């Protein structure tokens, strides 16, 4: 179950169906992201696609009558309208219409009636409806998916349902569903999915029953998006920000590449270092640079023609390595700078202590000191306060109001400070069903105790996201029925070969890292299931807090947070 490969196979099929000849690929905003994450432009050009256009920008496209046009879009009303206009006055010789999800018969008729020139040669549905960021991570572009109060808006709900359907079909699975009962959206999504499988039963005929989809809400684990990260991909997203594997470096004070693309399929160094810790990355970059320098030096000693020929032959490789080195040196340099400038080592240590050990007196003093520290940014101050609020919510020594006061003194906006309360309303202990901090059940407490005794190899990576607990319980057939309902009751304890986890409200790269490593464990332990993670977006702390702020009402008359004694 590899979403990148599934996307690539679909696109290969699209080009194959249209036969030989020069082609132009016409896409909308979302499908452009999907295709660009799965392919480099040169790979598409190798399949005779030489031009890439957008259907929905309203820009005038020139007619090029010798081209075949591959249209790959979502079957939305707007796209259908634009397509009908295009078909009435076709700019290209032939059209091959490919839709990323199910298109209604009515819409199909509208298109057919507009096709007066009979330019359309093929109409096909290929079910890719989310952006494949990595082989096991696929997301929608919905960072602010909630409407107040913490429910998906109607349009977003439909979009999620469609994405789930496409995910099942692309892997040829007819999955069972476990959904978080306490989340109305999860329940509705499960119902909607079952309805869709019934409606489209012909499509699901060839599908296998060895998969389960687990639908849960972000509020069950609000800790993961609030932590600072130390693995490469997660760190870049957390400190600089990544969008569809593209890093925007325009705000970076350094000179250098302004738009960096991080694609594991085309960048060996990134593929090897994506999930490694910062320390390891530093070492690997050093050896990469040494290699590069060695090669560069040998190239300066061009004495014979044979040498020159060798140089010319190897020059493209050399250039490629040079490009990679420059890119990663720039990135890692910037990350380093930010770690120092924002005092992240100290802040991250405190974060992990708050989450892992929960010793209030230890944490509280350090927290107060850091909140007043000049290097601590507003974001980090908010982050720490929120973690504190979540961890010590029920504690008798909770002193959240004092911390909020310090935040206000930092000249943060009222809405920002209020968002801490929003977080507690969204994901506080009252709403959560799970044992997030390992202090509710004896089993979890024992685990933590043993961990504490053994000591930790790396104090910065103690946290393990909640989804790993779910995976473990699922694997043992012990996923709690009280917390997770099932679409079919007889599937409660079945063991599944494949698991798809869908998180409403955003996943994190920390979770993606864990899922990737879990999948890697299958090499040595084939009994484990394959896991794919899917969500409405990938959060970093900034976007997560933005969502909370957006859900924070603007009025001044918000009652102050009352501690739960």
């Amino acid at each position: 179950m590899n979403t990148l490969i599934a996307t690539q196979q679909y696109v290969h099929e699209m080009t194959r169906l249209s036969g030989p000849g020069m082609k132009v690929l016409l896409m909308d905003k979302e499908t452009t992201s999907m295709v660009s994450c799965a392919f480099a432009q040169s790979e598409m050009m190798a399949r005779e696609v030489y031009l890439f256009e957008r259907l929905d920008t309203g820009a005038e496209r020139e007619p090029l009558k010798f081209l075949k046009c591959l249209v790959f879009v979502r079957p939305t009303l707007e796209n259908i309208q634009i397509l009908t206009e295009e078909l009435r006055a076709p700019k290209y010789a032939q059209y091959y219409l490919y839709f990323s999800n199910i298109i209604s018969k009515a819409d199909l008729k509208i298109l057919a009636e507009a096709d007066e020139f009979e330019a359309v040669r093929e109409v096909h549905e290929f079910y890719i409806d989310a952006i494949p960021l990595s082989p096991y991570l696929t997301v929608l572009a919905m960072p602010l998916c909630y409407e107040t109060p913490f429910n998906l808006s109607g349009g977003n709900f439909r979009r999620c349902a469609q994405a789930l359907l496409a995910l099942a079909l692309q892997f040829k699975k007819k999955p069972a569903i476990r959904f978080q009962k306490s989340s109305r959206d999860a329940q509705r999504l499960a119902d909607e999915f079952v309805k869709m499988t019934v409606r489209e039963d012909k499509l699901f005929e060839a599908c296998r029953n060895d998969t389960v989809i687990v639908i849960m809400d972000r509020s069950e684990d609000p800790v993961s998006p609030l932590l600072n990260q130390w693995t490469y991909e997660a760190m870049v997203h957390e400190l600089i920000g990544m969008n569809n594997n593209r890093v925007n470096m325009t705000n970076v004070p350094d000179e250098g590449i302004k738009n960096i693309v991080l694609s594991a399929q085309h960048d060996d160094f990134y593929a090897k270092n994506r999930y490694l810790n910062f320390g390891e990355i530093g070492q690997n970059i050093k050896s990469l640079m040494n290699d590069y320098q060695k090669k560069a030096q040998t190239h300066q000693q061009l004495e014979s023609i044979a040498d020159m020929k060798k140089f010319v032959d190897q020059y493209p490789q050399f250039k490629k390595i040079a490009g990679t080195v420059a890119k990663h040196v720039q990135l890692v340099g910037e990350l380093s700078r930010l770690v120092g400038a924002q005092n992240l080592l100290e802040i991250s240590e405190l974060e992990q202590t708050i989450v892992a050990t929960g010793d209030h007196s230890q944490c509280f003093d350090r927290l107060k000191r850091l909140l007043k520290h000049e290097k601590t940014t507003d974001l980090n101050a908010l982050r720490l306060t929120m973690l504190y609020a979540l961890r010590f919510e029920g504690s008798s020594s909770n002193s959240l109001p004092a911390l909020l006061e310090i935040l206000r003194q930092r000249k943060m906006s009222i809405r920002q400070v209020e968002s801490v309360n929003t977080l507690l309303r969204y994901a506080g202990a009252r709403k959560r069903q799970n044992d997030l901090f390992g202090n509710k059940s004896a089993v979890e407490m024992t685990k933590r105790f043993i961990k504490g005794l053994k000591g930790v190899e790396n104090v910065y990576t103690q946290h393990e996201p909640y989804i790993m607990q779910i995976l473990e319980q699922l694997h043992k057939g012990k996923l709690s029925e009280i917390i997770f309902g099932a679409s079919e009751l007889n599937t409660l304890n079945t063991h599944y070969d494949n698991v798809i986890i869908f998180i409403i409200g955003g996943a994190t790269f920390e979770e993606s890292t864990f899922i990737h490593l879990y999948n890697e464990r299958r090499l040595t332990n084939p009994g484990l299931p394959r896991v794919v993670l899917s969500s409405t977006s990938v959060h970093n702390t900034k976007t997560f807090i933005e969502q909370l702020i957006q859900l924070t009402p603007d009025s001044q008359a918000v009652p102050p947070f009352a501690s739960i004694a």
Partner: protein
Amino acid sequence: MDNNGSEIRQGFLCPFCFRDLCDSNALYKHVEENHQETSSINNDAIDALKGAFGRAKQKILKIDFSTIAGTSQSREDLRETSPNYVYFEEENQTVGIHRSLKSIYVSDRDNCVNAVAVDTNNLIIRLDKLINDCPDEASRKDFEKETVPWTADNSSAYCSKFLPFMVAQKLTNPAFTATEISSFKKNSTALTKFSDSGVKRQTTKFLSSFGIEASKFGIEQPSNPEEQSLRVCLKCKKLLERRQEAMDQMSMPSVFVDMYEKLCQLITQVSNLSPSYKRMAASLKNGESMYTLEAAVQLRKKLGSLQHEIQSLSERIEKWGLQGDPLAPKPTPREIILRGNIRYSAIAALQETVLDMPEIPSKEEYQELKEKHKEKVRRQLEEEKEVNGIRSFSVISFESCIET
């Protein structure tokens, strides 16, 4: 574990039943299996646990842990055990579900598009009749009335607009026979003139199938009374234009497309020949005589010439029309990008297949290599003989042992 014999017990003790389990994993399993229910419901038990852990922790932290071996499940260890970071696919993932809606689409389309085709063909037939079979001026009106029934002014809802329709420029018609087409083509030399013997030199004010009297509308005469022209309404004009475009597209071969197809052919040729060349060179380097030196040289020359051809052709494609060539239309901005991409793609394909072409040895070198190879083979054969000899010798001696 460490039991120093005093009243205070230490070690991996279960806080519920105080059994000594000697190991962290065993302790965990024990609690999970035996004390699951009681601990999750009973808050007192949890508090007791907290207290017990707190006390135990103080004591245990003083113990030296280097003796405790445990399987660490931390991330770092996981990474060390897995052999590589490449994304693996243990089973072949095949293309996901997809379906074609072509049949439904085509049947929907046929229903309405056929109507358009029928209208267009009717129009063509009428035009044909009116132009070709048109008798002289006097009876023209009657003829027109006969061919196409004229309706009263007011009842026509369609023809609110009409434009001069220069027949020569626009009309080709599959309904005509071949000879008629050729006569038409003769007539349609320049853009607007409609000349020659086939048709009478008159201005034909001809209104379209929904005919309305021109004079009643006060239409201005065409500026050049010499010109033959027909007047059609907007709707019919569109139909006829559309037909013309479709015909144009089918018949017009584009030089550009031809060049591109040639380029594709060349690239396929190169990618087919390149692996055999590499094989040849490798075998020759070994001194083997499976391939002749001349054949390899020939192949290399061919690859070289193909490479040059591809490079020059792709350059021509990129610059086509940019140098004021009268035959080539000037490319639009998107077309320029398109051509740039084609060239880039061609060069990339070349780099993959042809760039690291291995060297073939010269004649003298090849002789030397052949000799070396022969030597090697001879030596190998001798060694084998020896081994076989020993074996057969030992078989004989064994048998001889048995006999005695």
